[in-house]
C-alpha cells in the first residue's frame, strides 16, 4: 500500500512533467535550445584546434581539479545540510506525506530517489565544459560523462550525509558546532598538506598542486575524496583502485542508510524548516531574483542610513545593506568567483592576461544579475518614491561602483602579481572589468524597458545573455580590428583592454540614458 502510493506519486510527477512539455510548447523549445547548445559545445570542442597543434596537459591536473571541486561542493552542501537539515522534501511532501499513515522509511526512500534526479540537474553545467577539457586534457565524451556522474553522486551523497548528521545534532548547538569544527579541521589539514607540498616545490607550482591534489590525504576526504579517487583512477587506467574507492563509498552509504532507517530519531521535524526555506526560495525565484544569501543571524552594528535625501537615499541604503549582507564586504558568491579566477590564472599562466580578463568577465555576468539594483526592482519603493526616474536609476546603480571596484581589485592585483604584469595593465583590467558591470546592468535595464515583467524566468535569462553579447560586441570588434591591423599602444594586451573599455562606456551610457524612464514602464 505504502509502496503503491509513493510509486504512484513518482510516476505521476514524471508523467505530468513530460506532458507539460507538450501542453506548453515554449518549455519544449527551451529544451531543444538547451540540447542544441550542448551539441554545439560538444562539436565545437572537437573542432577547436588541429589535433597536431594541440598541447595536451597532464591528466593529473584534471584529476586534482576534480578532487578540489568535489571537496568544495561537498563542504558547502554538507555545511548547509548541517545548518538547516536536508532539502529533500518540498512543502507538499511535508503537508501531505508526513501526516499520512505511510511508513517513514518508505517516505525517506521516495525522497532519496527524487534527490538523485535533482543532483543530476545540478551537475549539468559540467557538460558545457567539454570544449576546454577536451582541448587541454584530450577528454573524451565518456570521460566527460564520468565527471558528470561522479559530480552528481558527490552532490547526492553530501546532501544525504548532511541530512543524516543533522538528525543527530539538530537538538544542540554544541553538537552542530562540533560537527562543523570536524569538517573545518579536515579542510584546514588538507590545505596545510597542499601548502607544504607547494612550498617544497616552489619552482613547479602547477605540478606540485596537481601532485598534492591527488595525494592520499585529499583522497581520504569522506565521500568527495573517495568519489574523486574513483574517477581519477579510471582516468589513469587503474581499475582495481577505482573499484576499491567505489566499494568504500557504497559501503559507507549503505551503512548510513541502515542507520537512518533504523534510527528512532524523528527526522520530520528537522526537515520542516528547510522545506519552508526552500519554498520561500522557489517563491522568490518566481519574482525573477532569488533570495539573498544573508547570514542566519544578521549583525546590525551601527544603526541608521545616516545620509541621503530623495533618490540618493537608495545609494546609502544599498551601502548599509552590503555591510550587513556579508562580514567581508563582498558577496560570498563573488568571493568564490574571485578564488576560481585566481586558480584559473595559476593554470593558465602562459596564456597572458587576456584569457583571465575574459574569464573574469564571464563570471561577472552572473554576479551582476544578482546585484542590488535588480533586487530593488522587485520591491515597490523605487517605483513609488516621487523623484525623477533617471535619478532613481543612477543612485540605485551607484552602489555597483565601489562593489565592483573591490571585486575587480581582489581579482586583478593577485592575478597581475602571479603573471608579473605591469601596474598599468592591472589598473586597466580593473577599470575594464568595471565597465562590463555597467554594460551588463545596461542590458538588464534595456530588457526591463522592452519587455517589462512579461518574460518568463528562462526566457529572461536567455535574452539577458544574448543582449550582453550584443552590447559587448562593439568593444570586442574594435579590439579585434586593432589587433588585426597591427595597431598597438604600449602592448597588445593594453590595446585590447583599452579599446574594450573605451567602447563599453559610451554603449552602457547610451543604453542607460535611452532607458531613463524605465521605472515608468517596468512591471512589478
Amino acid at each position, binding site marked *: 500500500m505504502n509502496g503503491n502510493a509513493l510509486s504512484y506519486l513518482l510516476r505521476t510527477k514524471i508523467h505530468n512533467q513530460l506532458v507539460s512539455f507538450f501542453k506548453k510548447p515554449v518549455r519544449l523549445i527551451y529544451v531543444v535550445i538547451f540540447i542544441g547548445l550542448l551539441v554545439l559545445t560538444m562539436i565545437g570542442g572537437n573542432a577547436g584546434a588541429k589535433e597536431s597543434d594541440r598541447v595536451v596537459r597532464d591528466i593529473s591536473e584534471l584529476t586534482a581539479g576534480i578532487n578540489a571541486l568535489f571537496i568544495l561542493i561537498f563542504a558547502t552542501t554538507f555545511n548547509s545540510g548541517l545548518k538547516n537539515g536536508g532539502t529533500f522534501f518540498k512543502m507538499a511532501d511535508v503537508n501531505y506525506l508526513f501526516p499520512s499513515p505511510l511508513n517513514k522509511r518508505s517516505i525517506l526512500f521516495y525522497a532519496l530517489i527524487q534527490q538523485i534526479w535533482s543532483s543530476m540537474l545540478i551537475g549539468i553545467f559540467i557538460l558545457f565544459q567539454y570544449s576546454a577539457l577536451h582541448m587541454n586534457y584530450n577528454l573524451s565524451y565518456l570521460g566527460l560523462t564520468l565527471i558528470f556522474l561522479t559530480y552528481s553522486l558527490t552532490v547526492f551523497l553530501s546532501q544525504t550525509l548532511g541530512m543524516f548528521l543533522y538528525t543527530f545534532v539538530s537538538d544542540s548547538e554544541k553538537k552542530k558546532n562540533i560537527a562543523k569544527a570536524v569538517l573545518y579541521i579536515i579542510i584546514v589539514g588538507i590545505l596545510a598538506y597542499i601548502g607544504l607540498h607547494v612550498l617544497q616545490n616552489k619552482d613547479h607550482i602547477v605540478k606540485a598542486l596537481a601532485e598534492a591534489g591527488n595525494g592520499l590525504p585529499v583522497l581520504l576526504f569522506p565521500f568527495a575524496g573517495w568519489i574523486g579517487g574513483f574517477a581519477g583512477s579510471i582516468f589513469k587506467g587503474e581499475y582495481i583502485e577505482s573499484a576499491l574507492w567505489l566499494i568504500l563509498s557504497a559501503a559507507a552509504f549503505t551503512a548510513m542508510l541502515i542507520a537512518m532507517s533504523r534510527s528512532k530519531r524523528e527526522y520530520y521535524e528537522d526537515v520542516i524548516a528547510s522545506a519552508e526555506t526552500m519554498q520561500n526560495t522557489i517563491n522568490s525565484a518566481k519574482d525573477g531574483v532569488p*533570495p*539573498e544569501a*544573508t547570514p542566519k543571524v*544578521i549583525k*546590525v552594528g551601527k*544603526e*541608521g*542610513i545616516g545620509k*541621503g*535625501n*530623495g*533618490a540618493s*537615499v*537608495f545609494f546609502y*541604503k544599498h551601502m*548599509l*545593506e552590503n555591510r*550587513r*549582507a556579508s562580514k567581508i564586504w563582498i558577496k560570498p558568491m563573488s568571493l568564490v568567483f574571485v578564488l576560481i579566477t585566481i586558480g584559473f590564472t595559476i593554470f593558465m599562466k602562459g596564456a597572458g592576461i587576456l584569457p583571465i580578463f575574459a574569464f573574469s568577465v564571464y563570471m561577472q555576468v552572473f554576479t551582476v544579475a544578482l546585484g542590488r539594483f535588480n533586487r530593488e526592482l522587485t*520591491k*515597490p*519603493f523605487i*517605483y*513609488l*518614491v*516621487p*523623484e*525623477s526616474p533617471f535619478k532613481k536609476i543612477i543612485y540605485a546603480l551607484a552602489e555597483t561602483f565601489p562593489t565592483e571596484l573591490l571585486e575587480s581589485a581582489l581579482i586583478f592585483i593577485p592575478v597581475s602579481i602571479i603573471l608579473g604584469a605591469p601596474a598599468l595593465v592591472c589598473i586597466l583590467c580593473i577599470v575594464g572589468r568595471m565597465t562590463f558591470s555597467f554594460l551588463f546592468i545596461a542590458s538588464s535595464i534595456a530588457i526591463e524597458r522592452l519587455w*517589462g515583467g*512579461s518574460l518568463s524566468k528562462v526566457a529572461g535569462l536567455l535574452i539577458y545573455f544574448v543582449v550582453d553579447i550584443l552590447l559587448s560586441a562593439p568593444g570586442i570588434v574594435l579590439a579585434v580590428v586593432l589587433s588585426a591591423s597591427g595597431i598597438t599602444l604600449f602592448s597588445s594586451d593594453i590595446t585590447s583592454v583599452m579599446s574594450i573599455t573605451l567602447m563599453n562606456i559610451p554603449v552602457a551610457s547610451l543604453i542607460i540614458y535611452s532607458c531613463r524612464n524605465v521605472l*515608468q*514602464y517596468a*512591471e*512589478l
Partner: protein
Amino acid sequence: MLKVEHVTKKYGKLLANNDISFSVESGQIAVLVGPNGAGKSTIIKSIAGLLRFEGKIEIGGFDNKSVEAKGLIGYVPEMPAVYDLLTVSEHMEFIRRAYRLPDDGYDKYLLERFEMMDKKDKVGKELSKGMQQKLSICCTLLHRPRVIIFDEPLIGLDPHAIKEIKNMFSELKAQGCALLISTHMLDSVENFWDVAHIMVNGSFAATKYNTPGGENEKSLEELFFEITEGKASEVGK
C-alpha cells in the same frame, strides 16, 4: 482625487482588467470586492504605477506615473514589502529621507500605534509576516498620502492591528483622504465603506453605494453571492 478611465490590462492573452472606469473622491472609502482572480490586484497595481496599462489614471489631477502623483499616493501591497537587511526604524528613516520629510516624530507615532516600537531594532528578515505587514502599513502612511490604496490589508494581522487599521481608515477618511481597499473578505469591510465595486472576470459586475436605504435593499454580501453565483443582474445606485 482618484480617477480611473477605461483601463484595460492584458497579460499576454489573458484579459485581467477590461475597460474599467471609476473614481474615489476625497473623504470617501471605496472597496473592491471579488473572488480570487477577479482582477482586483491588477487594477490596484496599475493605479500604484507598477504596471503598464491602456487607459488613463489620475491622482489629484496628475497622471499617476508623474512625480506629483507619486507624492500624493500611498500603496500597501498584498505581500508586505520590507527589506531583509534594514531594521524597522531604518525602514522609516528610508521613507522619511526618500520623500524628503521632516523628522517630526510621526514615524515613532505610527510605530507606537501599531505596537512596533519594541521591534524597532529588528531587521526585516526577523519579523513575522504580520509584523512585516504592519511595518509596510507604517511605511505607506508616513508621508501622509492623500490617496491610499490597500491590497488585502487585513490578511495576517492580529486582532489589535485589525482594530487599529480600521480606526485608521475612519481617521484618514475624516482627514479628507481618498481610500481604495481591495479585499475578498466581505465581513472585514462591512461597516465603513462608502462605495463597493464587485469585480468578476476583470470587469465591474456591480457598484453599490452604502446609503441608508430601504429595508428591501440587498446587503453587500447578498449582492456579492448573487453575482458571483451566476445570478448577476443590473444593479443601480
